[in-house]
């Protein structure tokens, strides 16, 4: 469904962010993209909807070659890809409802969007989505009045309002506490399952990735160094992705690792950041 072919991005500063990435993601698959900061995770998903222009290589969404589209074609293609951001990237001074309806901007004319007159079906759908993410009573609040977890729910609902075929998710839990992070990840998994959506999820939390992703792609210095199931993330693989570290000591990632010390709760929440 989504196919990257030899995708390369070199920034004008000369930094090679991605080199010759080839990757295929079938419909309905939720893929976790892990890797150290600067490995090119954000660049990769931004190349897909061309918020960042790839230097070379090709990207297909079904039979549509995204990398060849003109401005108008690109805008139409972007409607099919919902994006969810690290720090929510809601328009802070607009209401929750306006943020949600901004997911419909690709479908309505400029004048309708200027006077905030959206088709009744869009508004009905927006209310359904608000109900789905549990924010019904906050519809008329301004986005900056919400908590982090609530904002990310609006972010998810905005992406879903586009009726996308794939979600591009950039560090959805980076500014959230461990409990909220897990709730957001669970919500993402559920909505993907409900709608048969594929997703690429950039995530730096290996434990969350292991629990909620169907497939893991490990990125290091702009190249894929791991591609497989979450169970394959052994200490050796993590060292390959992130570099040398005592992986066994910080979690249950190794079968040969020490058993939990008494008195220390061995919950995933407490080992959020690796």
């Amino acid at each position, binding site marked *: 469904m989504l196919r990257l072919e030899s995708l390369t991005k070199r920034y004008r500063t000369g930094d090679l962010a991605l080199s010759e990435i080839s990757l295929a993601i079938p419909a309905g698959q939720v893929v976790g993209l892990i890797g150290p900061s600067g490995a090119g995770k954000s660049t990769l998903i931004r190349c897909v*909807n061309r*918020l960042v222009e790839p230097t070379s290589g090709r990207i297909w969404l079904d039979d549509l070659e995204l990398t060849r589209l003109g401005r108008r074609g690109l*805008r*139409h*293609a*972007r*409607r099919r*890809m*919902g*994006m969810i*951001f690290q*720090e929510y*990237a*809601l*328009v*802070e*001074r*607009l209401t929750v409802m*306006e943020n949600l309806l*901004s*997911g*419909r*901007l*690709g*479908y309505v004319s*400029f004048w309708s*969007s*200027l006077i905030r007159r959206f088709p009744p079906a869009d508004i009905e759908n927006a209310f359904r989505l608000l109900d789905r993410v549990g924010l019904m009573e906050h519809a008329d609040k301004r986005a900056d009045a919400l908590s982090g977890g609530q904002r990310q729910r609006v*972010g998810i609902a*905005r992406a879903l309002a*586009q009726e996308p075929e794939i979600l*591009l998710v950039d560090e959805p839990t980076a500014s959230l506490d461990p409990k909220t992070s897990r709730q957001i990840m669970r919500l993402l998994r559920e909505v993907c399952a409900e709608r048969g959506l594929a997703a690429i999820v950039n995530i730096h939390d290996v434990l969350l990735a292991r629990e909620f992703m169907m497939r893991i792609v490990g990125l290091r210095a702009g190249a894929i160094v791991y591609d497989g199931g979450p169970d394959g993330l052994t200490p050796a693989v993590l060292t390959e992705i992130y570099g040398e570290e005592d992986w066994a000591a910080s979690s249950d990632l190794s079968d040969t690792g020490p058993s939990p010390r008494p008195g220390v709760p061995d919950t995933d929440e407490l080992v959020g950041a690796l």
Partner: protein
Amino acid sequence: MAIRQAPHGPIWRKRTTPQSIALWFGWLLLVLLFVLAWEAMTRNQIWAFVWDAPEQAADLFGRMVPPRWSYMDQLWVPLWDTINIATLGTLLAIVLAVPVAFLAARNTTPSPLLVRPIAIFIIVASRSVNALIWALLLVAILGPGLLAGIIAIALRSIGFIGKLLYEAIEEIDLRQVEAVRATGAGPAQVLDYGIVPQIMPAFAGITLFRWDINIRESTVLGLVGAGGIGLQLKASVDGLAWPQVTLIFIVILTTVILSEWVSARVRAALI
């Protein structure tokens, strides 16, 4: 920063010795400039006039009080004109300055090499000429009256509003813009949903502040014939009608205080 190695460990001082000497010479030059400028300034001063200034001031003040309150009948219309010049001038300036600001801001200009310099030039040109001078020119072109005053205020305000607004546009959070663009929105929609909400507080603050300044500026435009209460002020000063001048001062002061109050209230309501 200067870190020097000494036998007992590194020594830190804020500046190196050459830096300290350069700084000292900088201050010396500033003092010399002040002395020279003072000398030039007072070369043609007739000191006899300065020595009896307190007497002159007391004499003038004696002739200025009490204010001639009955003159107020003739001030209501010019006062209304003054407020209208400021308000209409500010509105006209907004209409012209907003597009210029978007053309001048680095992140919204269509062309940084061609359009941006032109927009910046418009802003600088507008800011470099005082409203009184614009009025002087416009009275010569359009003839005396309110219209010259309104346009003069607008021309001066374009630069002020344009400059502050384009700086606000350059400081917006780009992630919010990126998020709107990622939905497939067109450029005009990105502007409406991603940028405009972010600059609304700055926009409200800037225009109200400028309206407030324009009330003050429009009180003097009448001096050159561009309408408003300044005309009465000039006539009264020329006619040595000092009690009327006092009343005009009181009226201007009251108006400015009121406009200050109004703009503070509106700003609080909008942000």
